[in-house]
């Protein structure tokens, strides 16, 4: 491999994990946008998404099924089950844990989020056990040559799924009635009430959508790394949060860019410098960025004129 091919390979791998970071980062940034809360339990929602996907695989009997139509439908079913499970979890989390604290000091909600995170980790550990669980391979492992880099079918699927979800989200947020209401709620909930916009319902839907994106991220993560563990949500969640801050917390395109960028930088750092320091790069990037541009890459705001 020429040095350029090596670089391309790193880039492809970085974009893959970056796509997963981006999907999760969107949930952090959307929830922060509407209620200014860092939902630290969001990483756990991602992890639950992976486990719901695993259960769906086992329930549908997809372990070791030959590639083909049945498997493609199986993949859709697994993703669908995971989205449904996580959307319900997101709704429950918002309704039971955060809504009663809507008027409480922000620190209260933040600590609740951390507590919820421990609760979800341990609940999953009780149900599925503490050891790594194997995630069935749903996507046939065909290798493609992409300008010198080797890309698996799974990577293509991850890019396509993440791209599709993000494009769908962008349309939803920018074009639909619900999306406009979400952006308006993010800016001024009181003004929304006066217009008859059901702010509580908009917040619920925001949690459901963010959790659905994390669910897709969870299934893709399980497929990519072949195993899932109950504490996967912690580090991946923290990195996705980093990605959201990198792009500018509250900014939806920022979370997408931040996720992809973080994945690429981390992979390049691990490849060219030292693999042991892989996790350190992500956070060094964050610290450096915050030093020079505390609002994140796309976090600039239009001046509010009175």
């Amino acid at each position, binding site marked *: 491999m020429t040095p350029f091919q090596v670089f391309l390979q790193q880039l492809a791998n970085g974009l893959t994990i970056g796509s997963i970071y981006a999907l999760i980062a969107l949930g952090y940034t959307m929830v922060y946008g509407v209620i200014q809360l860092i939902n630290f339990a969001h990483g756990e929602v991602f992890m639950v998404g992976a486990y719901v996907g695993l259960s769906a695989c086992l329930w549908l009997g997809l372990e070791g099924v030959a590639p083909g139509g049945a498997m493609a439908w199986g993949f859709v079913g697994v993703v669908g089950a995971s989205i449904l499970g996580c959307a319900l979890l997101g709704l429950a989390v918002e309704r039971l844990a955060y809504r009663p604290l809507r008027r409480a000091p922000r620190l209260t909600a933040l600590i609740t989020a951390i507590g919820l995170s421990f609760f979800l980790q341990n609940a999953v550990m009780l149900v599925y056990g503490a050891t790594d669980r194997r995630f069935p391979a749903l996507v046939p492992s065909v290798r493609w040559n992409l300008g010198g880099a080797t890309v698996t079918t799974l990577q293509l699927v991850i890019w396509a799924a993440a791209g599709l979800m993000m494009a769908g989200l962008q349309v939803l947020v920018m074009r639909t*009635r619900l999306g*406009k*209401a979400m*952006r*308006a709620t993010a*800016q*001024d909930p*009181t*003004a*929304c*009430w*006066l*217009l*008859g*916009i*059901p*702010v509580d319902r908009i917040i619920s839907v925001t949690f459901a959508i963010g959790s659905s994106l994390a669910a897709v991220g969870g299934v893709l993560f399980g497929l990519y790394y072949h195993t899932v563990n109950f504490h996967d949500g912690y580090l991946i969640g923290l990195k996705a949060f980093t990605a959201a801050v990198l792009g500018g917390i509250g900014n939806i395109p920022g979370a997408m860019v931040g996720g992809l960028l973080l994945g690429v930088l981390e992979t390049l750092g691990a490849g060219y410098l030292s693999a042991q320091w892989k996790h350190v790069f992500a956070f060094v990037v964050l610290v450096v960025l915050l030093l020079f541009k505390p609002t994140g890459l796309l976090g600039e*705001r*239009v*001046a*509010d*004129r*009175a």
Partner: protein
Amino acid sequence: MLALSGVVAGYGQTACLKGVDVEVRPGEIVALLGANGAGKTTTLMAISGLVRPRQGAITFEGVRLNGLAPEAIAALGVGHVPEGRRVFTRLTVLENLHLGAYLQRDRRARDEDLRRMWELFPVLRSRQHQLAGTLSGGEQQMLAMARGLMARPKLLLLDEPSLGLAPKLVRAVFDIIVRINAGGTAILLVEQNARMALTVSHRGYILETGAVALCDSAKALAGNPHVKSAYLGG
């Protein structure tokens, strides 16, 4: 159409309203005047549900509003253009107006209302794709009023619509208030600019420290010596 009787409301321990009685009849413009801190804004907030009344009753077309959520009150036909305009600065003018019509599921009716707004506020039409935050103060006031009208309210609460505007724009805003009213919408108007408010209103209330001190026709209030010296600058 709207009746407040003995409304007590406030924030925390203090009661800003100590028993307010106000009535708005169909087709009226009613001015709510008073010094800073007299309770004008709190009265509007109590009507639209942003502040919960502790005592008294607020009814709108026979429906008791006490304890209803703000979005439910808006759905009954009470529009509220809050103090400081509060337009969505990071959304476009058109998006702001669409959000005003959030409860209007009929697209044709919504687009018809939009056309009426362009007629009433031509400046908004030429700026419809601009972010609301880039508008001038007067334009933002126009947008806030248009946004409030998109829901086709039967009663519109206007809180300080002329605040911070140049004299020429103040006149334009009051002209529009009269035109909105001519279309059949009742208006409860809170204003610092008592002189202008009384020229467009049918009736008026003077609030002093959380209670109604005076209530009369606008003409009578404008001629009242106490009102003249305290609110109309002598």
